[in-house]
């Protein structure tokens, strides 16, 4: 059995309790709504791009602790980074959550690696991925996205871990 308790580590519980960058960015240049129809979770990501740089970012929504902590840590991590850097993190985070990333090899996830445990909990993978999914949609000017959209490049089938 996967030890899911390892997923609910202090840093995740803390970000769930005191989410960073919670709300909406006024004068946002990009925004997207993300839905997980399997569990009803939804969140919005708003951000302001200054050229290629993410100047401000915020998220808002109703979700489980895994999703909320993932969103909170994501916003803290990508703020100030370029769009290309954010896309790299999105790809690496998705690969980690679905068990395709070798954590021992080089990556840029830093303490986001705390979410690696979801790869052993197929039904929770999408909880962790939803914010990243939505960020991907926002920076690419896609107004809404869903974890169940087959043609979405972020689509990660349950059990694909």
């Amino acid at each position, binding site marked *: 059995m996967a030890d899911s308790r390892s997923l*609910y580590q202090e840093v995740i519980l803390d970000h769930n309790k005191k989410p960073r960058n919670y709300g909406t960015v006024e004068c946002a240049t990009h925004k997207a709504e993300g839905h997980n129809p399997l569990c*009803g979770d939804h969140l919005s990501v708003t951000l302001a791009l200054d050229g290629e740089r993410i100047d401000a970012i915020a998220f808002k929504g109703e979700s489980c602790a895994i999703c909320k902590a993932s969103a909170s840590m994501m916003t803290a991590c990508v703020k100030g980074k370029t769009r290309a850097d954010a896309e790299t993190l999105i790809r690496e985070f998705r690969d980690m959550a679905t068990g395709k990333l070798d954590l021992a090899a080089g990556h840029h996830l830093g303490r986001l690696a705390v979410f690696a445990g979801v790869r052993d909990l197929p039904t929770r993978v999408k909880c962790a991925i939803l914010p990243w999914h939505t960020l991907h949609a926002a920076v690419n000017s896609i107004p809404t996205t869903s974890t169940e959209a087959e043609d979405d490049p972020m689509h990660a089938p349950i059990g694909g871990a």
Partner: protein
Amino acid sequence: MSGTMSGTMSGTMSGPAMSATVLQARPSAAFDVERVRADFPILGLEVAGKPLAYLDNAASSQMPQPVIERLVRYRRTEHANIHRAVHYLSETATREYEEARRKVQRFINAREDREVIFTSGTTESINLVMHGYGRKFITPGDEIVLTTLEHHSNIVPWQMLAEEKGARLRVVPINDAGELLIDAYEKLFTDRTRLVCLTHVSNALGTVNPVKPLVAFAHARDVPVLLDGAQAAPHLKIDMQELDCDFYAFSGHKLCGPTGIGVLYGKAELLEEMRPFKGGGDMILSVTFAKTLYNTIPQKFEAGTPPIAAAIGLGAALDYLTALGMEAIAAHEHELLAYATAELCRLPGVRLIGTARDKAAVLSFALQGVHPHDVGTLLNEEGIAVRTGHHCAQPVMHRFGVPATTRASFAFYNTRSEVDALVAGVRTVQKVFS
């Protein structure tokens, strides 16, 4: 009833017992849950190093040893295709398959065995009525009455039909306890009402609907009624002649039987009028390219090779339940539900979703400040299996303003000590999130 559980208060999980016990019918006062548990090998499992507390019975129940053995015996000594050949195995399989149909007939007290159609489950049973009855008899402007309590499988087929036919769905609301508003139900009837589709027991809340008077009300207006019995059949004694419903749908795997088998009961005169649902072998009398003559019921609705083993397994499961006695099962589960409700309500921050006066075996709740998926994952670490999510009943979730709930659902083999484990597990969750 209280006192019948004394033997289970401090009971630990019993290990798998491989010898089948054929239980004799006994009065409810003598319901011996530990003896019953010995028939279910899976209940002896450990999960995450803890004894399994399986409280997800509304999703699917576990299978007792006599049913497992019946399936093995069929596979080893009786299998062939049915209704086909003249050889020994085909005749044996056909006889056992048709005997399973008669066991269902007796279990639900249908007038005739040809009123029992084997399907793949409740969903297919409802879709059969939608295609066979709805597509033939529903016309533009007609109205179909549903309720807020329906599982998606008793909503979506009717939406598809309404869209195709230009018909209209009318939805009976519920009160804050999760009970149907009977006045509203009666007021929804118009001269265009053609069908009522109603759940007997709510899968998300456990509400037992007063279906008998609701059926009578519809019948007084010549409106037929389909009852979704998926959650009722495992917990209540169901009697087709007493309920007088026109259709009744339920699943085998919620009744200690296999998956892939379900039942549609229908009144013979209605089934005879209906169009076949699927075309193929076994549902025909003769086929030429000019014209095909359909078989009589029930074969008209059982195209192709059916799940023979699963049907026979369901028959064995019904034998098992009948030997225990549905009244004894209901009494034990009722006692367990009352205990669990009282214990869980003692915890701060617990909000019960669904507090109907008449409930069956389901405890749905929300935990303040904790999402149900987090509750489910953490309870799993304690060896406790519950369902979290919208339970395929999103209209119910919307009614209560929650995206999802945590649902513990009981079977006759659950114990007070498992309820205690659930309550302790919820306390642990609260501690993690404090």
